[in-house]
Structure formats: structure tokens, C-alpha cells
């Protein structure tokens, strides 16, 4: 189809900066030349992505400054172009991408962890509603099946294991107390982002809960959990009480 070749040339011009094929397909005339007209679309796309990244990572943007942030986002787009039209999910690999940039790591070693926290807060905000854990069905399972139960974390519950205590930095931003000179201590920080009614919050968790959350993420069965040396029944009850576990299935 001729239309397919036209759309491909548009994509090449706007995303890959290869405008030759599209230029030949366009009418000339008017006050703008063909290349100026193509630049409008290149700019539109870039502005949309910068706006999305700024919305996903507002504190990161403030920490590095808008100019530097925009440059990083442009580089990020080249390495990790969007794979979905769902812009709420865009920027998923930004933390890992930043870890690969030496200058960022030298000046702000905590930046990737800050991104992880910001991204988790956004994903938690948009996550589906929790369903009530059906305790009656769970209790009715035969004993041999109960040991094969795999608990499921609610979609808005996102455990984070970070190398820097970025939560304090993030909170300073929320209260308008952010200082550009802030330094972020390098200390192992276990957090769980979870929605409190509608608002996602970062919650500190203790060691037994952290271990249990990790095991749940690894889809371990109840039998495997209970045979683990660091299993804490209190931690399991705590997660159930908080509503962070909202489903289960029986492993085959």
C-alpha cells in the first residue's frame, strides 16, 4: 500500500531523524520549507515525552535541573523508546538508564533510587483496586493444598529495596522544603509504596516484613515460606491486616 510507505517515511523523519524520504513526499511552498515543517512534528513529539517524564519524575527533575533533565530524557528516548501508548507507564527504565551514566552517578549517586521511588508512586496511584482476600475459600482448602498456596500482593503494593535513603529527599520536595544542597545518605532502605485510600505513600518496613515481601514477589508457596528460617508469622499477619495481600492461587 502507498499509505504504508508514507507512514514509514513519516516515522523515519520524526523518530529516526531521517527526513529524506518524507521530504520528497511533501508539497513545497508557503513561508516554511519542508524541513521546517518536519521539525514541528519532531518538536511536538519531544515536548510530549519531556512533559510525561517531568510528570513521572518531578523531584528528579528538580534535583538535576530542568535543562539537564530534558537532555537526559532525550537520550533516554533514544535508548528506550516508548513501547506502549500508555504514557502513565513510560519511563520504566529511567533508573537503570541513569545508573549507566557515569557523570550522574558521580554527582548524584542516589538519583536512580529516587527515580525508583517516584516511578513506584506513579504506578501505585494508577493500580487497580484491591480485592478482598477470600479467607473462607482459603480456609476450606485441604491441608495439602494450603501448603501450596501462593499469596499475591495487591497491585498498588510495590516493595523497593534501595541503596540510599531517598524518602527524606522526596518528602522535602512535597513540603516545599527541598534544598539543592541536600545530600542523600547511602544506607540500605526498604520501603513499600502502597495506596492509602487514593494516595500512594512510601512506608518503612522492618526486616521480617521485607523478607516476607521478597519471598512473596518470588512467588514462594506457604509451605516454602514456613520452612524458611526467617519466616515471621507476625509479619504475614501484619501484611494481611494492612490489606497488602489481596489474593492467592494454589501452585500446580
Amino acid at each position: 500500500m502507498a499509505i504504508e510507505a508514507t507512514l514509514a517515511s513519516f516515522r523515519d523523519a520524526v523518530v529516526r531523524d531521517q527526513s529524506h524520504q518524507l521530504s520528497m513526499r511533501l508539497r513545497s511552498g508557503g513561508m516554511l520549507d519542508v524541513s521546517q515543517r518536519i521539525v514541528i512534528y519532531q518538536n511536538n513529539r519531544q515536548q510530549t515525552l519531556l512533559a510525561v517524564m517531568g510528570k513521572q519524575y518531578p523531584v528528579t527533575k528538580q534535583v538535576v535541573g530542568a535543562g539537564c533533565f530534558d537532555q537526559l530524557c532525550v537520550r533516554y528516548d533514544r535508548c528506550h523508546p516508548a513501547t506502549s501508548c500508555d504514557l502513565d507507564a513510560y519511563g520504566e527504565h529511567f533508573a537503570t538508564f541513569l545508573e549507566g551514566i557515569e557523570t550522574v552517578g558521580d554527582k548524584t549517586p542516589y538519583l536512580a533510587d529516587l527515580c525508583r521511588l517516584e516511578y513506584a508512586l506513579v504506578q501505585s496511584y494508577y493500580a487497580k483496586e484491591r480485592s478482598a482476600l477470600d479467607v473462607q475459600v482459603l480456609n476450606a482448602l485441604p491441608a495439602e493444598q494450603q501448603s501450596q498456596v501462593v499469596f499475591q500482593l495487591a497491585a498498588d503494593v510495590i516493595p523497593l529495596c534501595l541503596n540510599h535513603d531517598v524518602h527524606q529527599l522526596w518528602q522535602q520536595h512535597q513540603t516545599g522544603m527541598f534544598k539543592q544542597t541536600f545530600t542523600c545518605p547511602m544506607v540500605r532502605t526498604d520501603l513499600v509504596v502502597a495506596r492509602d485510600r487514593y494516595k500512594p505513600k512510601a512506608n518503612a518496613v522492618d526486616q521480617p516484613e521485607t523478607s516476607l515481601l521478597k519471598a512473596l514477589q518470588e512467588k514462594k508457596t506457604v509451605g516454602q515460606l514456613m520452612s524458611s528460617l526467617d519466616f515471621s508469622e507476625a509479619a504475614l499477619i501484619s501484611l494481611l491486616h494492612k490489606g497488602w495481600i489481596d489474593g492467592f492461587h494454589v501452585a500446580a
Partner: protein
Amino acid sequence: MSERDQCSISGVGVGLRHEHLSDILAQQPAVPWFEVLVDNWLSEGGLDRSAILGMAERYPLAFHGVNLNLGGVDPLDMAYLARIKTLMQDCQAAHYSEHACFSRYENDYLFDLCPLPYTQESARHLAMRVEQVQDFLGEEMLIENVSSYFEYQSSALDEAEFLVEVSQRSGCKLLLDVNNVYVNAVNHGFDVTEYLQRIPQQLVAEIHLSGHDRKSGYLLDTHGTPVTDDVWRWYHYAIQRYGHVPTLIEWDHNLPEWKILEAERIKAEHLWR
């Protein structure tokens, strides 16, 4: 055609944006309907989901999308469309509209409303995909004209002819963005009167009004400023030609306070009456 409960819309509405939600829910202004940019409200839970259902209890809603890639050559994303269909049912939305454009090619997302060549082949292609959407939704949809900054040499039809061709082939209605018509008329040097006269009265089911920026050598469709005097004049002409078509004030960037949007709506309402 439709088997679901759906509201009807009339008069001049406003495009719902997150930033105005708390004002709207608190003040419950006398706005006859809101248009929902559906891509911003597809979350499965949380505040947005609750808010959109709350809005649907209070106001008639129409749904408008930007990400379907309706004119593209990649297969339509039926999972995305299914989420829209479910939300339309939940909100009893009046209708669903999308743009006569493409926004993706293969795995590259363009995040813009990119113009199609206006050829018979494109018209057949777009009409076929509109039919696919309508069959899936079980109802008629609306397609909207987009702003553009260049024209393809291969375009054998003008934009109005192209839209009418797609509408007549697929049975869809048109969402006429008067600002986009004006922007394109300036950018490509055509006559707005001729454009509007080529579109039969019965095809226009909704009108959009928005603002643009005047750049060096062209107009940029920003949806980020008040409706300009030129566009108000063409809206007046359009209302005389097409009758009392539901009209929307659409503002996406540099969002003003709610009261400024409401003032724009009232201005449009005076002309609408």
C-alpha cells in the same frame, strides 16, 4: 445500533481535565456535559477511576481518544479498545470519538496526531478501520479533523472531501474542530467557507473549539490559549450552517483556572443559542 445505556449531550460542554476536577466536584457548575480525554482515565483503580465514575453520576460524558492510531497500518489495539468500551458502559458515555490520523508506525509511537495522505486508498483504509471499531463497540463513532503543518504530494482529495468520503463509507459521524480547520486553512492556504460548505449538515455531530499560537510563518495548534476571534467567527458560521450541534471548549496545555474555562464556555453558549 447500540445496546448499552447511554446519555445524550446538548449545548456547550467543557473538556474535563484533572486539574479542574476538585473545583468541578465541589462547585458542581451548571455545565451541560463534559468530554473525557479517555486515555487519561483508563486506570483500573484509585482516585481517577473513582472520580470519573463520580463525574458520570453528575454529568453526561462524551469520550474522546488520542491513542487508537485509527489511520495507522498496524493492527488496532483491541485490548485498549476493550478498556474504553468497558468504561463507556460504566459511565454511560454518549459516544466515542477519535482522530482521522495516525499516531504510530510499527513499534514507534509518535505521540502526535499525524496527518494521513488524502487519497482514495487512505479513505478506504480509514473507513475500514472505523467500521472495525464501530462493530466492536456496537455503535457509531465520530472522527475528528486534525491540524497539520504540511501536505502530501499524493493527496488527491482535499481534507473536507476526505472526511466526507470516510464518513459515507463507514457510516461514522464527524467531530468538526473549527480551530483545526482554521489552522490548516492558514497553514495550507485554503478557504474555510469552501471547506465547511463541502461537509453536509447531517454528518456533523460535535464541534470543538480551542486556541492556537501564531508562529513565524504558520499557526501552531496548541489547545493552550483562549479561542481566537477568527475561530469564534468561523464557529458562528458553522453553527448557522450545521445547527445546534453539541460544542466543546477544549483546553489541554497551560490550563487556566476553571472560571476562565467557564467564561469561554458561556461565550460559546451565547453563540450556540
